[in-house]
């Protein structure tokens, strides 16, 4: 149960300032109408509803928010963002929260989703483009779920939807440079 007597004050709330600054969104403007959660197609799978995420940010509940399932379950469909009467881009705040969560080193509330994103980015880094088969093999080597969708994969292969080898092209080197600079922190 949240303490409703806590004052919402940005000056004494480092988490609110941090998220507001990184996202550029006015989180204080949320007055809990719950329209975001009512329209969210994946709310049923979340542990903290979108409106509650905003409230918890207002209450400086950093760890609770950054270790929630919600921030990873959000599918970035932007339904909440377009319906918010206070024009808060909630989907964008979810992006901010995900990157803060990764940088905080906190245990993520969903195991496989952050792994997927990291494998996806590794595939871009090494190949420049997403080669779906390489992506799937990499992901499976991390999640150890080798049987999942194996039958479907075979069906798709027979339909000519699975390309066996990545394309050959020349843009890959520049991509590696972008990643290397980001990893060194040079472009932040």
């Amino acid at each position, binding site marked *: 149960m949240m303490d409703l007597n806590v004052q919402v004050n940005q000056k004494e709330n480092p988490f609110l300032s941090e998220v507001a600054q990184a996202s550029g969104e006015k989180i204080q403007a949320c007055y809990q109408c719950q329209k975001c959660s009512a329209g969210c197609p994946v709310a049923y799978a979340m542990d903290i509803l979108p409106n509650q995420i905003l409230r918890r940010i207002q209450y400086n509940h950093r760890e609770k928010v950054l270790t929630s399932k919600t921030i990873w379950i959000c*599918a970035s*469909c932007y339904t909440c963002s*377009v319906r918010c009467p206070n024009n808060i881009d909630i989907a964008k705040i979810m992006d901010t929260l995900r990157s803060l969560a990764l940088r905080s080193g906190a245990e993520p509330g969903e195991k496989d989703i952050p792994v997927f994103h990291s494998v996806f*980015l590794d595939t*871009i880094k090494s190949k420049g483009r*997403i080669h779906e088969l390489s992506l799937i093999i990499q992901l499976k080597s991390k999640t150890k779920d080798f049987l999942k*969708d194996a039958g479907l994969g075979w069906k798709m292969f027979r339909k000519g939807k699975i*390309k066996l080898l990545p394309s050959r092209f020349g843009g890959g080197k520049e991509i590696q440079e972008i990643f290397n600079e980001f990893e060194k922190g040079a472009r932040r």
Partner: protein
Amino acid sequence: MKEISYYPGCSLHGTAREYDDSIRGVSKLLDIQLYELEDWTCCGASSAHCTDEELAIELAARNLAIAEKNDRELLVPCVACYSRFKAVEKEVKEHSKKVHFPYRGNIPIRYSLDFFCDGPILEEIKKKRVKPLSGLKVACYYGCLTVRPPKVTGIREYENPQHMDRLMKLLGADSVPWSYKTDCCGASLVMTRTDIVRRLSGKLLSMAKEVEADCLVTGCPMCHANLDTRQEELEKETGEKYNLPILYFTELIGLALGHRDVKKWFNRHITDPIKILSAKGLM
């Protein structure tokens, strides 16, 4: 002859090959010359913007810089790539964001559905239509990023868009009204929380069946994959029979224009569209 740059994106070189083939085929019939961007790379997709906004901007900007050098309008068939490109365009143009690659936001970036729904192109389609899709009941599925967020897409009717419906009517099809036009299919959660995608996609398929659509039409390779490939799995789970082909809008333009490769495109689908199209006398 109209000349434009073309960024296919990763999916169209893999699971969405029929979308790529049908765009190229239809463009040729409509006198549009596509120039694939040289050495294009991944736009960064969900994984980049979900985890590192700055990296996401650079990955997209590299492609936009190539397109700007060629100084042609840029056609983007994957709505996820399109959404990323438009977000970066907005950052650069409206918020004076500095990017590493020489990109200033000077070329129009067009999503394929919006592009083919433009007045002059619709006129051209109308002129060249040889086989009206009479008797075909289609449910137009726009999905999320085609319309949202409107500050990025510029679509005004984002809760009840009509442009694909208008295109379908022009092709001679009957576009049925339904309430899930812009509901989410679960998108990239398919690789990790397939249960969520099954639930969301199942809801869409059931509703399309309820309004008695013969097929569902989309312009998003991710929605297509989620809806096309998991029907058998869903049938086992729910006992409901779907058998609902998911078509790219460009495939239907191709069918109406009498493109000779339509069968090749349709053969790549997991849920077979040929049976129902033949039954309607369209193939």
